């Protein structure tokens, strides 16, 4: 598999202003993301997650270190404006607040907005918009006013806009945080489908540990650094470490971990409640 994003020793600071001191948001960040993978980024508020996301889709520019996106060194002095635009066409982003990223009044116009800016012929835009809306299950709403949709539906429209632009990599910056359980489930299912069926590289920034447990790899950030980078099994396999930096583990893991204090040796990184019940009942039914 090819590497789509490779970061080496990235640093980023927000400059000093009249009232605030300089903030080192990213400190020596290095990681690689392979094509078609699902990566979750965990970390508490202010740990640098969103700064990193903005650098990856080139809203912000890292100050030192090297960043290669789709094979192009974006920090190189020789990079042309066209090349920067090309990279921006590969990496899309869906933000947290659905109301902050809707630009048009009608669903299909909003989805088409990005494509129009790319100068795609209108016949093709029509086709892309229809397909994208079907993909997120919002096709029946194509002529509805966006303002009347629920938060989850708006977020699906925003995702459709990114799909229509055919991004190879999509960053979701806490895109489920403001949604209710149903909206969250819908959006997560779409994210999984994009990744598994369409081979889109997904980076999901989240506070929900059970969402992170679906990823191929988790990056844990704390105070501007990547403090761990591994599979969900390895990351959640050490709950104490997560608790120490103010994060959590899925309840399934917490349950098995705490049972192990009583002398059991359950594998603690099982994330499906039914599967947890299965292994626990095997142990306990033999007791009775």
């Amino acid at each position: 598999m090819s590497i789509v994003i490779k970061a080496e020793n990235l640093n980023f600071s927000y400059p000093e202003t009249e009232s605030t001191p300089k903030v080192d948001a990213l400190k020596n960040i290095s990681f690689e993301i392979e094509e078609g993978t699902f990566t979750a980024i965990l970390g508490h508020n202010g740990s640098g997650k969103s700064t990193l996301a903005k650098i990856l889709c080139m809203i912000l520019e890292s100050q030192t270190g090297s960043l290669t996106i789709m094979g192009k060194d974006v920090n190189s002095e020789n990079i042309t404006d066209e090349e920067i635009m090309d990279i921006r066409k590969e990496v899309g982003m869906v933000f947290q607040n659905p109301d902050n990223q809707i630009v048009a009044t009608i669903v299909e116009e909003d989805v088409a907005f990005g494509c129009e800016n790319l100068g795609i012929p209108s016949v093709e835009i029509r086709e892309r918009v229809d397909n994208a809306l079907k993909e997120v299950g919002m096709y029946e709403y194509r002529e509805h006013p966006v303002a009347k949709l629920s938060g989850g539906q708006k977020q699906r429209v925003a995702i459709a806009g990114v799909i229509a632009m055919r991004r190879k990599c999509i960053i979701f910056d806490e895109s489920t945080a403001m949604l209710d359980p149903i909206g969250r489930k819908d959006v997560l299912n779409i994210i999984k489908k994009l990744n598994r069926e369409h081979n889109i590289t997904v980076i999901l920034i989240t506070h929900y540990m059970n969402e992170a447990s679906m990823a191929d790899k988790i990056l844990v950030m704390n105070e501007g650094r990547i403090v761990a980078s591994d599979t969900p099994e390895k990351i959640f396999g050490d709950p104490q470490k997560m608790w120490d930096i103010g994060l959590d583990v899925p309840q399934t893991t917490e349950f098995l971990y705490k049972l192990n204090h009583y002398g059991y040796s359950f594998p603690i990184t099982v994330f499906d409640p039914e599967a947890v019940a299965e292994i626990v009942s095997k142990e306990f039914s033999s007791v009775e």
Partner: protein
Amino acid sequence: MASIELKNVSYTYNKSLPSKITAVDDVSLKIDSGITGLIGHTGSGKSTLVQMLNGLIKPDQGEILLNGNNIWADPKKIRDIRFKVGLVMQYPEYQLFADTVEDDIAFGPKNMGIEGEKLNETVESAAFFAGISKEILKKSPFELSGGQKRRVALAGIIAMSPEILVLDEPAAGLDPAGRRDILGGIKVFSKIKNTTVIIVSHSMEDMAMYCDDIIVMAKSKVIAYGTCSEVFSQHELLTSTGLDVPQITRIAAALKKNGIDIGDDIYTVDYAVDKLIEKYKK
């Protein structure tokens, strides 16, 4: 503690239009102590209900009683009710406006006529309960992190010493430590100031940790109201209305199917572990 009671309350949006929607349909309930959680998925009517509690929306039918008195008895006095029932809206950090944190917190009490030394005391005590350190009182609220801003907005409402504090999704968008800070602070405030608190949330895990009672709304009606254990034991009812039960509750339900019965009131991990060990360990 202050009590708030709804008697056969209904409210319909767009009454005279074909698009009319009854958001709250003949709801009766009484909340008079501790922390009560209000859950229900989007469109269940909980936001409408919450806005009726402090008189932002007037019910079409029924009465809302604060400490036994109808809040709409004299519509001219509804402003007083808004001081007594404090409402912290969703994402309140977007409503900060003053030059300093201190001024922002002081805005409410100032409008109630509090001034001088008393005002300073009020602001400091509110900042304390919301977990705001003294150093940031002189800062601009716009320099703060999201979690800090949220706490400033909360302090602004606490400063009005409401008899009833209503919070719409107070922990949304915060990380686990931030959620614990803000919800823990609200719990301490409720205990020490003897204030009745109502929290609207989607997070069953948070509700299970911090609430004494839970009200569940679906399709404009209250479908369950009881202690955490009474409500969470009805997980089939909850899932059928599109709500998510905590993962640990699902584990307990699956265990029961396999013949390991640790009770129907499982909603925190520690309790589940205790029950399982107590009942089934050799």
